[in-house]
């Protein structure tokens, strides 16, 4: 049994409304209705759901990028639910995030060099500027990014290169955990395959735990050990990928799986409906 890295219990989040002095929220829209989630060290966990399922909110809540209304989040044995931002700061290096759109997640006014070197110096992962530069260059070799990219700004790179810079920024800090938020939607299949393979190699080599958020069950199946299926702010199914895909328990999971068109002729697919709930 793997050791737990992230344990979230009964996480609830709402947006909008008003907050009373005791922290209670009046009005607003509930996005997460009490979610339990566990991520082991080195484990890749998929979080899948359609738009409005709360998967992105859950990911950001785990990393304390948004405040939660109720519940508890434990990272590496430490309750981080109530930590102040200054107390979170040393932990931030250990949990990183890779975004869906590398175009907007990389500062358009900075060079790639600055985007990558600055965090290394800030967290003292690198001793000095030269050490940081060496690490960045080493990583570029490893992921097949040309060194010329270092002096470019993000909009001067191709989509695949930008995505790799986004991955580099997270991985260079030597975290224990990365959150990958829809990182391959919108990429061509070939570029997508490259990015996913790179991510698989990195998590394996660095012993990284990963939460992989996606709306695409095929991608989840390809990279994840376990999967959480979310719908409307709740987890409707959880389990090892082999089990969930072989015999989905919830009707919603069956609906999602059935809705994926496979690249082979299946004359009945378009008119087939998933059987209604039997239990």
């Amino acid at each position: 049994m793997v050791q737990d890295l992230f344990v979230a219990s009964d996480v609830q989040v709402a947006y909008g409304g008003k907050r009373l002095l005791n922290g209670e929220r009046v009005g607003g829209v509930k996005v997460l209705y009490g979610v339990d989630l566990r991520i082991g060290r080195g484990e890749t966990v998929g979080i899948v759901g359609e738009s409005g399922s709360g998967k992105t909110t859950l990911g950001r809540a785990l990393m304390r990028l948004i405040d939660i209304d109720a519940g508890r989040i434990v990272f590496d044995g430490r309750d981080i639910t109530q930590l102040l931002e200054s107390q979170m700061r040393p932990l931030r290096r250990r949990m990183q995030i890779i975004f869906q759109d590398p175009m907007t997640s990389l500062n358009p006014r900075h060079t790639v060099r600055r985007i990558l070197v600055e965090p290394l110096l800030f967290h003292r992962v690198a001793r000095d500027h030269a050490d940081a530069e060496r690490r960045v260059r080493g990583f570029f070799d490893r992921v097949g990014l040309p060194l010329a990219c270092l002096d470019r700004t993000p909009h001067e790179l191709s989509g695949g290169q930008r995505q790799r810079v986004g991955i580099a920024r997270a991985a260079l800090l030597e975290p224990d955990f990365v959150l990958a938020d829809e990182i391959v939607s919108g990429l061509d299949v070939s570029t997508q395959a490259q990015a996913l393979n790179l991510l698989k190699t990195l998590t394996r080599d660095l012993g990284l735990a990963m939460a992989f958020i996606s709306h695409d069950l095929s991608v989840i199946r390809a990279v994840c050990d376990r999967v959480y299926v979310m719908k409307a702010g709740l987890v409707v199914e959880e389990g090892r990928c082999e089990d969930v895909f072989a015999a989905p328990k919830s009707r919603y999971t069956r609906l999602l799986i059935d809705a994926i068109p496979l690249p082979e002729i299946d004359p009945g697919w378009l008119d087939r409906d998933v059987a209604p709930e039997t239990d």
Partner: protein
Amino acid sequence: MTEASVSSFPAASGPNLATRRLRALLAEPKVTIGGGFILALIAIALFAPWIAPKNPLDQDLMLASLPPAGLASAEPGYYLGTDDLGRDVLSRLIYGARIALIVAFVAASLAALAGTALGLLAGWYRGWVDGLISRLVDIWMAFPPVLLSILLVAVLGAGVGSVIAAIAIIDWTRFCRVVRAETMAQAQADYVTAAHAIGFPPFHILMREILPNVVPALLALVSLEMGIAVIVEAILSFVGLSVSSDTPTWGGMIAEGRQFIHQTWWVFAAPLAALFATVLAFNQLGDGLRRALDPVLRR
């Protein structure tokens, strides 16, 4: 030591970012034409004593109301003619550029500084900070600007310092509004969340991540504001609230020329044309800067 070891890495390839930004700027005709005009004007203002053909204050009633060169009864050496007191219009125009430019640069910079600082605070902290600053801006903008500036100068006393203070005090709101909106928009971008996730403190995120993205809009606005400052200075000179009348200003020249517009129209037309060209150049420069510095527009 660190510095030396960094420079021991050869540049990866191609010119660095600053060089490329400069090239992008120079490739924008509005920047080169507008900026070129302003640079020329600065040079003229700086070297006025050497460039101006006559002393701008010298009166000679024998040579009063001469028309510009090329017209009948023009005198050689008085290229733009003389006014009713016989002062050389071209020389007065050249010296007038000094006041116009000093006011433009100092007033616009002060207004930009104050407005940007408050705009960043309002856009970043939102909540009551934003409420306070935005209400202040609303109240400020409800005053008619020209009347307010006349009132301010009347209170502060005439003079170039008062004119600058009046413009800065009135026009910081323009910068505040734009910077606040831009900061709010940028704060929503993923790169800000990324900076937060890395653990950068809020002040670092505001100054080093967000501010550079606000600068293109800001620079464009500063340039436009310089044009506005030139006009406001002219208005205040026109009503006699700027510098004392022994210093030539474009606004003062327009006011003097207005009285004899039917006889010596050039005394009125020359400073008006200078004013028009300068404001146009600042506006073109501002528009060009916005285009050239915006990485999205440029692609």
